[in-house]
C-alpha cells in the first residue's frame, strides 16, 4: 500500500533526483524535494538504478531535501541494508534531526 507507483510520485513536481560524479569519480544521487509516502517509490527506483551502476556503494546528496517522513526513511534504510557503504552528503537540518532523533545516525552516517 506504500507503493503508489510512478503517477503519484510524478505528480509531485517539486521532487526530483539526479546523478552526478563527485571529485573521486564516485556516483552521487542528488535528491531534491520532500521524501514522503508520495515520492518514496520514485526514490526507491532511482536508488536501485544507481546500485546497478555502482554496486555496494551509495552516496546521497540530501542538501535539497527539506522534509523526510517514515516512508522516506524506510527507503533509505532498505537501501542501506543492501550495501557495504552508504553516506549522506550534507544533509539538511531537517533530515539530520529526523535521523538522529530516530536513533539511526549509525545506520545512515553523514558526511558534512
Amino acid at each position: 500500500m506504500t507503493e503508489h507507483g510512478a503517477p503519484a510520485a510524478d505528480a509531485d513536481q517539486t521532487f526530483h533526483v539526479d546523478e552526478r560524479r563527485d571529485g573521486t569519480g564516485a556516483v552521487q544521487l542528488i535528491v531534491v524535494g520532500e521524501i514522503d509516502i508520495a515520492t518514496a517509490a520514485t526514490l526507491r527506483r532511482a536508488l536501485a538504478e544507481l546500485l546497478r551502476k555502482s554496486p555496494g556503494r551509495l552516496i546521497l546528496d540530501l542538501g535539497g531535501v527539506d522534509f523526510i517522513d517514515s516512508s522516506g526513511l524506510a527507503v533509505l534504510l532498505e537501501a542501506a541494508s543492501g550495501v557495504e557503504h552508504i553516506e549522506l552528503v550534507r544533509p539538511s537540518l531537517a533530515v539530520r534531526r529526523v535521523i538522529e532523533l530516530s536513533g539511526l545516525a549509525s545506520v545512515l552516517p553523514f558526511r558534512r
Partner: protein
Amino acid sequence: MAGVVGMSGERASRADAAAPVRARRRPSLLGIAVTATVLAVTAALAVTAAVVNGHNEDRLLQLQTRQTGTLLQAFVQGLETPLASAAEIASSGNGASPSYRRYATAFLHTQNRFVSVTLWRVQGGRTVLVSTVGSSPLAIAGTSHFSRFLISATTSAKVGVLGMLSGSDPRLGYAYASIGSAVRYVVYAEDRLPPPYGTKTAKGSPFADLRYALFLGPSQDPHNLLATSEKTLPLRGRTAHTVIAFGTASLTLVAAPVGSLGGTLAGDRSWIIALLGLLIALAAGLATDRLVKRRRAAEALATRIDTLLSEQRTIAETLQRALLPQRMPAIPGVEIGIRYLPGVNGIEIGGDWYDVIAVDDTRFFFAVGDVSGRGLEAGSVMASLHYAIRAFVSEGHDAATVLTRLGRILSLTRDRHFATVLCGYADVAERRVTIANAGHLPPLVVAGPDDGSNRFVTTGTGPPIGVTCGAVYEPISFTMDERCVLLVYTDGLVERRGENLDEGLERLRASASAPDTDLDAFLDDIVGRLGADGSSDDTALLALRWTGARK
C-alpha cells in the same frame, strides 16, 4: 457510530448511482436549448432566404415578362407594315389595281396567316367593298358596327383592331387606312386564331421559361383570350403582367415562371437551409446532450468516489480503533489519558498505536509506537507488534528486552516497514518510570501548574524496530513528581513540512500547559494547540499522572 456513518454513506452512494440512470433516459435541458436555438436561427435564415428569393423571383419575372412584351410589340409592328404597304399600293393605284392584288395575294400566302384580305373604299361616310383576296371576311359587310369601324380606321394613324370574331373558325380582324383626303382605301384583314388553350411553345423561344396567357385588351377577360400555355386559367402562383400597345387596342400578357427563374437551386435554397439547419440543430443538440450527460456521469462518479473514500476512511478508522484499547485498565494511584487522531488526508489506515497493560497492583506497562508508511500493510505490522508486546510483557520481560525481541519479528528488508516504539514500566508505589526507546521521539515531562519548566526525557535512543537485527536498548529510569504529567506521543504531533523536528518539539514543550484538571482536558488542550494546523500523519497520545490516592 462508525456503523451508522457507513450505512448513511451507502444510502448516499445508492442515491447517486440512480441519478445518472434517470439522466440517460431523458434528454438534457441544455441539449434541448441548443437544438431550439439552432432551429430558431435556421428558421430565421430559411424565412429570410425565402423572402429574398421571393423578391428575386418577382423581379426576374417582371423583367422577363416585360422583355417578352417588347418582343410582342416588334411582332405587332411586323403586322402593321404589310397592311400599311397594301393600303398605300391601293391608294396610288386608285383601287384594286393588279399590283395591289399581286401584293395582297403574296402577302396572304407568304405570311400564311391571313385568311382574308379585303379592300374598302371609304368616301363621304360610305364604305364600298373593292376587292377580296382569300375567303370572305367574317365581319358582316354593311352592318353599321363594321362600317363605323372602317370609317374610324381612316381617322387613326394606327392599325384599327376590330376585335375577336367568334364562330367555328375564330378570327381576329384589323384594318389600316391609306393616307389621303377625299377617297380613302382601307385594307381589312382577318387572321385565323388557333384554339387559345394549350398553345405549344417552341424550345428556346422567350416564352419557353414562362407559363403565360395573352389577352386582347387591357384586362384579363377570358373571352378575349388569344393564347395561353395552360389548359385552364387563371395562372397559378407568382404572376406578372404587362400591357402592350396593339394599334388602337392593346394586348395584355400575363406570365408565371415554369420553374425557378433564379436557377435550379434558388427556389430550393430556403429548404436546403432549413434541412441543413435541422441536421445541424439535431447534431448540436445530440452533442450537447452527450457532453452534459458525460459531465453528469463524471460528477456522479466523483461523488461516488468521494463517498467511497469517506467510507474507506471510516473503515480504516474503525479498524484502527478496533486494534487500540478504548478503555484503560483501572490502576489505583494513576490517571491515564489517551488520544488517537487520524491524519487530515488519511484515507488509508495509519500505523500508530498505544497500549497499557496492568502487570500487578502497583505496576503497569505502557507503549506508544509508530509503523512507517500507511495502509493495510502498515496496519497489520502495527497489529502484530501490538500483540507481540502483550505476549512479551506477559512473559515478564523488561522494556529493553521487549524491544530487542520485537526486532526479531519485523525486518525492513522483508516487510518494507520499520517501527519506532517507546515503552516502559511505571511503578505507582515508587512513582518511578523505566523506559526504553527504539527510535521514538522523547517523551515530555510537563511540569506542575506553577512550574513552567517542561522538559524532554533524555532517553538512550536505539535504532527503530526492524532496522538492525539484535539491537540492544538501554533502559533509563526516573521518578516523577505528583504534579507532573508524562506525555508520550508519535511524530504526527510535532512533525510539520518546512521545518525541522526541533522546532516542532520546542513548540510542544512551550505550549504544553500545566494541567490542574483531568488529563482529558489536558490532552484536548494539547491537540487544540498543536493539532489545529492539521498534521497529514496520524497521531497517538498517551499521558499519565500519579493521583493523590497513594497505596
